[in-house]
């Protein structure tokens, strides 16, 4: 018996020594070479094995739903020569997923769906990289925010809400701490000079809506996305007061909803992005492949229907335009984080 053990061990050691030499050569290059050249000019490089579509939230959340819808379209329409498999890497408000994809420098077999936590989490958790380090692919939609209150709330307009917020510190709910929902509430607080909101962090958009609809823990308002509040709106448990958008939404259900700007809350430039990012250091050709795939997704009828069903604002950005958008949002979140001492 002992002899066999020694034999096994010897084989293993020999294998390790020979193999470690070649494996070291695979170590990722430390400097992510930003591919600033125009992506469309380069020859498209295709993936050679199955692709992981990393989702930074748990199964069933908004981001997860959008990613699975995209993956389904890619699969049914055969937009990619290799399967694109969704994979949830939740935890730390996205930090785990960002770290995971960041470590895949130069590997095009990973793409990731991101939302505003891509900025907030990287800033507040002091991660070792920046949002601008990743290879941007495209933004597929902007998810607007509405201001929601309980259906039996005495406030009829956004102005009523602001007046009440100036008198007392209102208890509001949102998804996650120091994330997009809180960022928006703090912006309202800042621009409208209200009393500081008492912000209660919930685990998902659905539980935020439930908290408002059920008066849970004294919660009086939220800034849910239209799709998150729709069912409870139809059940007459909660109602939107205004939309943080430049113009009223086009979806039939919300068509009569005024913009918040027209009600005196001057915020119309804040949305949740539904954007695709890739690991740092992809070549122009690799980036071009993904831009092409997601452009096809964006142009598909399925995605168009999906966007209108969920009251998403169609918005395709790639290349330089998307890069500028990322820089703008990066700056906006950095400012909020500094102002409210999130760091």
């Amino acid at each position: 018996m002992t002899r066999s053990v020694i034999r096994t061990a010897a084989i293993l050691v020999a294998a390790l020594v020979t193999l470690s030499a070649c494996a070291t050569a695979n170590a990722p290059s430390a400097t992510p070479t930003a591919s600033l050249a125009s992506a469309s000019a380069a020859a498209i490089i295709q993936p050679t094995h199955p692709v992981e579509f990393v989702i930074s939230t748990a199964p069933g959340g908004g981001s997860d739903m959008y990613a699975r819808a995209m993956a389904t379209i890619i699969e049914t329409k055969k937009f990619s020569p290799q399967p694109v498999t969704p994979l949830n890497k939740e935890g730390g408000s996205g930090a785990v997923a960002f770290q995971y994809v960041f470590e895949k420098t130069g590997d095009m077999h990973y793409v990731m769906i991101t939302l505003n936590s891509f900025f907030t989490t990287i800033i507040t958790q002091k991660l070792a990289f920046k949002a601008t380090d990743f290879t941007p692919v495209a933004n597929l939609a902007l998810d607007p925010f509405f201001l929601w209150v309980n259906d039996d709330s005495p406030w009829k307009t956004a102005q009523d809400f602001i007046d009440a917020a100036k008198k007392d510190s209102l208890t509001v709910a949102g998804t996650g701490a120091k994330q997009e929902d809180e960022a928006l509430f703090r912006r309202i607080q800042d621009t409208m000079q209200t009393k500081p909101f008492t912000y209660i962090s919930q685990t998902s958009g659905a539980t935020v809506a439930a908290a408002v609809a059920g008066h849970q823990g004294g919660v009086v308002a939220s800034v849910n996305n239209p799709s998150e509040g729709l069912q409870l709106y139809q059940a007459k448990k909660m109602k939107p007061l205004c939309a943080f958008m430049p113009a009223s939404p086009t979806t039939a259900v919300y068509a009569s909803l005024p913009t918040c700007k027209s009600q005196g809350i001057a915020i119309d430039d804040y949305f949740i992005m539904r954007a695709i990012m890739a690991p740092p250091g992809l070549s122009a050709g690799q980036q071009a492949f993904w831009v092409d795939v997601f452009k096809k997704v964006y142009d598909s009828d399925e995605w168009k229907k999906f966007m209108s069903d969920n009251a998403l604002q169609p918005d395709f950005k790639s290349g330089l335009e998307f890069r500028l958008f990322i820089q703008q949002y990066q700056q906006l979140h950095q400012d909020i984080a500094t102002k409210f001492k999130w760091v």
Partner: protein
Amino acid sequence: MVVLIAAVAMFDSRAAFSPSAGTAPGDVGARWYPFWAASIMGVASVIVGYRALTTPQGAEGAFEGSRSLFAVLKLAVPMLAYALLIGGIKWRTTDFTYTVIPPFGFYLSTALYMSLFAWWLGRYKVWWVGAIAVAFPIVIFAVFELGFRVSLPKSFLYETGVLPF
């Protein structure tokens, strides 16, 4: 008994660690809850340790002789080696990554691990060992990778394109 005291010491060191993180000011904070959990655990384990020390009991040896220790190690050591083999070991410094063990991935490691047991503990004939080493990974590959698209860890040979797993 000795192990019991070690247990208390270990628990204590853990318990002592958390409060050093500090309780946040304000009515609720992130540290409040782990702090109290750690304190309760510390106190409870001190009591357990005290009881163990004061109440005389029969020598409750951790391992009844080296034989049973060997029986446990026989399982524990290959298991650890197996886990390490799947993921490999890397040392990451700021500008270079040293590979101590390259990742063998799930399938190669499983083949090795299963055949080790069949050969060493089961004392099966060589062809049976070979069959087990090939059959199990193939079945798992078919079910997980092909059937359900669940990706299990791949070997370093996958990255270079030599093997499909």
